[in-house]
């Protein structure tokens, strides 16, 4: 905090950068220290939840300087655009009500204990008034999330979990207030506040899970380049933001830059990484005349591109719209707790009404009948039911997370439990999604050749070079000492080894993915690459079938590549599917009464991931794939699929048991309430113990994964 600020007389300006690559303490320290080392930066503070860093700096420092400083320490970053500002947290609005409910429940409970143990007359009167003074404002504040949600449901003539909660809480508070004013014997402030506290705790747990999930659309738009260098008619180069690009402009895209708009190449030959759009990792050659899309990464050489579509007209924006539409369909899903409330609420309310009428008919006064009816409402208020779902889901999510499977929210577990069909993308989902050098081709190389290849490959960021370097490093090889190493765009890497020219380059004959290792005087070695199937792919698919989930392939790749994988896995497949074809295929299955699980990784899978009933993406997926999916698994093993489905089904079973426990407990207490024997003490004990029972049952899920 006390970093030396070199320039103090001028006001600092503040910039927020989005740094998607941060995910641990080490990254945070690197980013903060890297920025604070710049003389003109006063403070840098990372927010890891939002993957952002807030920088206070001297106004002279421009945003590109900060981006370059982060680039130098290995983090890609972008200024946060205002229209895509941070999504509001779901937890934060619940924290204050939770704290108020906790404070009030504790203090009122303290007062209630002395009333239960026999406080009489003036003391009871004083304690009731104190409870009312704390309880009424606290109930109004802490109950607001429930009242608001119940009201919005009722206004649309629907009912949800919050309707019986709100009615119970409001009636009980009103009755307690009446008792307090008239100097009565019983007040229920402790019960209502405890109920609100437990329910808010459950809801906060649920919101914490949901907060980790960020909508796919803002990540998607963040992938588009913020702007481009535009060649003006006067021959000048000028930087224009993506919003100001228009069809007809000529943009110059350097190697390593992403395209900011759709267009056609005018001059320059290069290789493009279209994995963001197609999910296929192999670089694609591009020549003048060819159409290119926003979001594509230019790998090799600078190109000039004539813009044909910009902003909302690009194919990237089209996919964003498809995803948004698909996500809306899913939000129509009704959570299991709300489905339970549809049955529970009418039952409880008619029971309370029946006891009121019953006692009136038996000749009790209106006052006594009301007290009993409200006691019935309080004793049946779904306190444990409010915890039944979130606690089970949080415990299961924790277990899955330890197994390397990240579940984004509780409703994902509910939806995952019901799937009976799986559609799996090929590249990156069934396969590893990265090129792996052929073991046979590496085996024929001599030890010296491997050293040279490793040294050359380590100088390039080309995907094939990186794959080759990784494979050789894992194989325990050491790089040879090279001099004068240069990466030549569109060609490869060349250098000098013991005075002899050596090169790792593009092979002359194009065909499959390969690189050529050329050491002068030695024969040229061709190293082929393939995208291998995940190691336990077939076993995982067999387990899915055993769980009653039938799988098939849904890929955007060509028919030949899909047929090859289909043969190896024994699945049927659909090839050359566009993002819209994929969502159509899902809708067809859904209309046929199936619940569909989508497994995919690329941007082109984004709409399908959002449209399916549940979706899983590998951790290596594109940002969009990871954001759109409900579940993300780490590591290479596809066994995460059956494991997640099994865990989801086990969770659903425990949730059902929890409902049975909570309702069963109420069934025991309801006769007491109907007969008018329930005191606030009994209500408090029943509420607390049924909650503990439900939590204990949920903890059994700790080893579910």
């Amino acid at each position, binding site marked *: *905090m*006390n*970093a030396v600020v070199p320039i103090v007389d001028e006001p600092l300006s503040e910039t927020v950068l989005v740094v998607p690559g941060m995910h*641990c*303490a*080490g990254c*945070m*320290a690197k980013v903060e*220290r890297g920025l604070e080392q710049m003389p003109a930066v006063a403070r840098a503070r*990372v*927010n*890891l*939840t*939002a993957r952002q860093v807030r920088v206070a700096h001297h106004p002279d420092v421009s945003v590109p300087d900060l981006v370059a400083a982060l680039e130098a320490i290995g983090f890609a970053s972008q200024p946060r655009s205002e229209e895509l500002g941070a999504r509001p*947290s779901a*937890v*934060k609005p619940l*924290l*204050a009500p939770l*704290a*108020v409910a906790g*404070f009030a429940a*504790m*203090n009122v409970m*303290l007062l209630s204990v002395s009333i239960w143990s026999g406080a009489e007359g003036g*003391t009871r009167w004083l304690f009731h008034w*104190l409870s009312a003074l*704390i309880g009424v404002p606290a109930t109004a504040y802490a109950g607001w999330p429930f009242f608001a949600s119940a009201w919005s449901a009722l206004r649309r003539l629907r009912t949800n979990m919050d309707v019986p909660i709100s009615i119970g809480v409001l009636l009980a508070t009103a009755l307690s207030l009446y008792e307090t004013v008239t100097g009565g014997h019983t007040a229920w402030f402790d019960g209502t506040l405890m109920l609100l506290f437990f329910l808010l705790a459950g809801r906060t747990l649920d919101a914490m899970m949901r907060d980790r999930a960020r909508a796919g659309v803002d990540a998607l738009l963040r992938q588009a380049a913020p702007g481009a260098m535009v060649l003006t008619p006067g021959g000048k180069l000028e930087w224009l933001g993506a919003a100001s690009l228009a069809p007809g402009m000529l943009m110059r895209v350097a190697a390593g830059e992403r395209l900011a708009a759709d267009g056609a190449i005018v001059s320059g030959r290069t290789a493009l990484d279209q994995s963001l759009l197609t999910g296929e990792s192999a670089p694609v050659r591009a020549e003048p005349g060819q159409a290119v899309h926003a979001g594509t990464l230019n790998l090799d050489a600078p190109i000039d591109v004539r813009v044909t579509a910009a902003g909302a007209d690009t194919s990237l924006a089209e996919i964003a719209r498809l995803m948004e539409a698909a996500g809306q369909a899913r939000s129509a899903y009704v959570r299991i707790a709300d489905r339970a409330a549809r049955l529970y609420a009418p039952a409880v309310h008619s029971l309370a009404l029946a006891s009121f009428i019953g006692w009136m008919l038996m000749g009790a006064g209106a006052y006594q009948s009301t007290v009993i009816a409200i006691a019935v409402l309080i004793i049946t208020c779904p306190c444990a039911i409010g915890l039944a779902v979130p606690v089970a889901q949080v415990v299961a999510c924790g277990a899955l997370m330890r197994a390397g499977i990240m579940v984004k929210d509780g409703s994902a577990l509910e939806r995952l439990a019901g799937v009976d069909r799986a559609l799996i993308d090929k590249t990156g989902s069934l396969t590893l999604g990265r090129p792996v050098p052929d073991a046979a081709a590496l085996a024929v190389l001599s030890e010296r050749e491997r050293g040279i290849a490793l040294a050359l490959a380590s100088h390039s960021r080309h995907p094939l070079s990186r794959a080759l370097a990784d494979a050789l490093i894992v194989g325990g090889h050491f790089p040879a000492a090279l001099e004068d190493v240069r990466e030549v765009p569109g060609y490869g890497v060349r250098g000098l080894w013991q005075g002899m020219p050596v090169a790792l380059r593009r092979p002359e004959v194009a065909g499959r993915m390969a690189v050529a290792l050329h050491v002068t005087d030695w024969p040229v070695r061709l190293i082929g690459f393939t995208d291998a199937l995940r190691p336990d792919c077939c076993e995982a698919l067999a387990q899915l079938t055993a769980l009653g989930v039938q799988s098939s392939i849904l890929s955007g790749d060509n028919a030949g590549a899909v047929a090859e994988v289909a043969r190896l896995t024994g699945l049927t497949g659909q090839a050359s599917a566009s993002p819209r074809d994929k969502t159509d295929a899902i809708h067809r299955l859904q209309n046929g009464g199936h619940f569909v699980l989508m497994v995919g990784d690329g941007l082109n899978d984004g709409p399908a991931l959002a449209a399916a009933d549940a979706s899983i993406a590998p951790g290596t997926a594109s940002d969009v794939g990871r954001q759109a999916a409900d579940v993300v698994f780490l590591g290479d093993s596809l066994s995460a699929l059956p494991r997640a489905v099994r865990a989801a089904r086990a969770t659903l079973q425990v949730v059902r048991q929890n409902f049975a426990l909570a309702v069963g407990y109420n069934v025991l207490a309801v006769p007491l309430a109907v007969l008018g024997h329930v005191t606030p003490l009994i209500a408090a004990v029943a509420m607390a113990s049924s909650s503990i029972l439900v939590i204990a049952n949920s903890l059994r899920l700790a080893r579910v994964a």
Partner: protein
Amino acid sequence: MTSLATLIPIALFLGLCSLGTFFWALRGGQFDDLEGAANRILIDEEPGERP
């Protein structure tokens, strides 16, 4: 009875103090980045940095 008259206000006052502190922390942004706060304890301070 007289002890109650002092103890109850004290208890309520202390409770309100902690509630107020919580609200102050909430408004000050201390709950904005729970994930980051959990990770921050793992950052080693370099010698001589931020004394």
